[in-house]
């Protein structure tokens, strides 16, 4: 792993009291490889390594650490700084209902995450409504209806013959009229380059003014994470990210790429297929995971 590799790099530099440009360039090469292997975007890695290099050169090696450990410490701190020192929670609307809109690529885990979110919020005794706005995927509406039953939350699903923008608008009106605390919109998966479908999302946003637009992203996403996140952010001004399938062994470099490219925080993470609550994002745990 990275710490072993860095120990190796610094073995030849015993007794160095200070980090110099030359003694850290090998170390930074190892860090760069580790980040790329973790799927952090190439350009994000470049910027990150430059920043670490600036912070490292001239730094004192603390008495208790080896130079390798010192570099790791700086890298770790920089990663945490980049990803946000503390988890940012979901916000609520000043007046109910709070509308959460989940968006993202095909198969990223939106529908499942809607269910998990509904369970969390309903669990706080807040009346929650799930909205089946995916009219394209075969049995998407059935999927959400089943999930609604499993988490004990009502599902608004007029059917695939309706326009998703109207479905969302009507759902929020229902939410207001029937005193729901939260309305969760499950949208269809789509490519960020599909302008017609991205327009649909823009229209939903215009129609219902969501409190949060959450990009649901798969933790195993590779270099493309930046393209996806930047387009969704440019088109919708997302408020945060839900990173799914973190119960696997993907290093999750996409988290760093997305935060770095959009400035938007990962707020919650999906840790399984079952409809257990989403977990808060821990920047420090993510940093360790990415570094491997």
């Amino acid at each position, binding site marked *: 792993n990275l710490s072993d590799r860095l120990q190796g790099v610094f073995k030849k530099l015993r007794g160095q009291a200070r980090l110099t440009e030359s003694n850290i360039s090998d170390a930074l090469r190892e860090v760069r490889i580790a980040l790329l292997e973790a799927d952090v975007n190439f350009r994000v890695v470049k910027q990150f390594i430059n920043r670490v290099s600036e912070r490292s050169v001239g730094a004192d090696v603390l008495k208790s650490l080896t130079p390798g450990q010192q570099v790791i410490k700086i890298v770790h701190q920089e990663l945490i700084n980049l990803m946000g020192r503390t988890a940012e929670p979901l916000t609520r609307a000043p007046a109910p209902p709070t509308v959460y809109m989940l968006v993202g690529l095909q198969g990223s885990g939106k529908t499942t995450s809607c269910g998990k979110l509904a369970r969390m919020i309903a669990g706080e005794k807040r009346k929650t409504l799930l909205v089946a706005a995916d009219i394209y995927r075969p049995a998407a509406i059935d999927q959400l209806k089943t999930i609604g039953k499993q988490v004990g939350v009502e599902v608004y699903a007029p059917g695939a013959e309706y326009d998703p923008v109207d479905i969302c608008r009507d759902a929020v009106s229902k939410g207001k009229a029937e005193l729901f605390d939260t309305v969760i919109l499950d949208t269809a998966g789509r490519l960020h*380059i599909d302008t017609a479908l991205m327009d649909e999302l823009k229209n939903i946003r215009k129609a219902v003014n969501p409190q949060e637009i959450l990009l649901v992203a798969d933790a195993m996403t590779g270099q493309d994470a930046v393209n996806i996140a930047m387009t969704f952010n440019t088109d919708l001004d997302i408020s945060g990210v839900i990173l799914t399938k973190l119960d696997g062994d993907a290093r999750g470099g996409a988290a760093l790429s997305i935060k770095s490219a959009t400035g938007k925080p990962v707020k919650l993470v999906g840790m399984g297929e079952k409809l257990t609550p989403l977990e808060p994002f821990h920047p420090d745990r993510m940093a360790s995971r990415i570094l491997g």
Partner: protein
Amino acid sequence: LSGHQTINEDVLDEIEELMILSDLGVETTRIIIDGLREKLARKELHDAEIVRNYIRSEIERILAGHTAQLVRDKSVRPWIIMIVGVNGVGKTTTIAKIARRYREEGCSVLLAAGDTFRAGAIEQLKEWGRRLEVDVIAHDEGADPSAVAWDAVAAAKSRDADILIIDTAGRLHTKTNLMEELKKVQRVIGKNMTGAPHEILLVLDATTGQNAVLQAREFCQTVDVSGICLTKLDGTAKGGIIVSVVQELNIPIKLIGIGERMDDLRDFVAESFSRALFD
């Protein structure tokens, strides 16, 4: 990389960036760049255009050696295909596409709703069955997937189907119990028909990064994967990870998914894939 720019470190950096951005991975990129440096030292490559062609042909060569078509032995009936992969990669949709292809050839196709876990999974495959006008063997949600597989093989035999395609639930390769379940499904299929399943397709998502290699390793250890389908190539991800996957696991890439409709399936072609990598 502009046409006839002379080769220097900046150009090599640019090339490395293109390769990493296409998810080729650190190791594959390093090997190709090292090969490139050797050729440069021997003055065998003069400008960026030639370099670009060299890399493209290198990748094409690797992939061409690991490409195969989806074929079936027509004398073996039912020809049984099992579909596996992690969550959300496009298994169920790929089954619909493969079924459609065989329907176009005039084959009788039967589907098995082997995902008995996920909400709406059985209904999703049944809906595809309706659109394709093929039958779907299904139990209730929560049933034993091996029982569904067994019944599906029996049904395919008794109905004299040409093709049986068995869907399985998405599962992360790190979940030992779920991987054991998959092993059992393969075993049970083989118990009801010697030699079956005749094809086990691993579905990988083109937007996946280095984790695809870990997925492929585990799935190949668990069941006898005979081919790969790489989906979602209609996005902006290049799917370069497939190069490491086929080299390391020595399984052929057979199909690609280029969309969500039943006709969005193509044979994998090394030449067009390598060309698209650096577009």
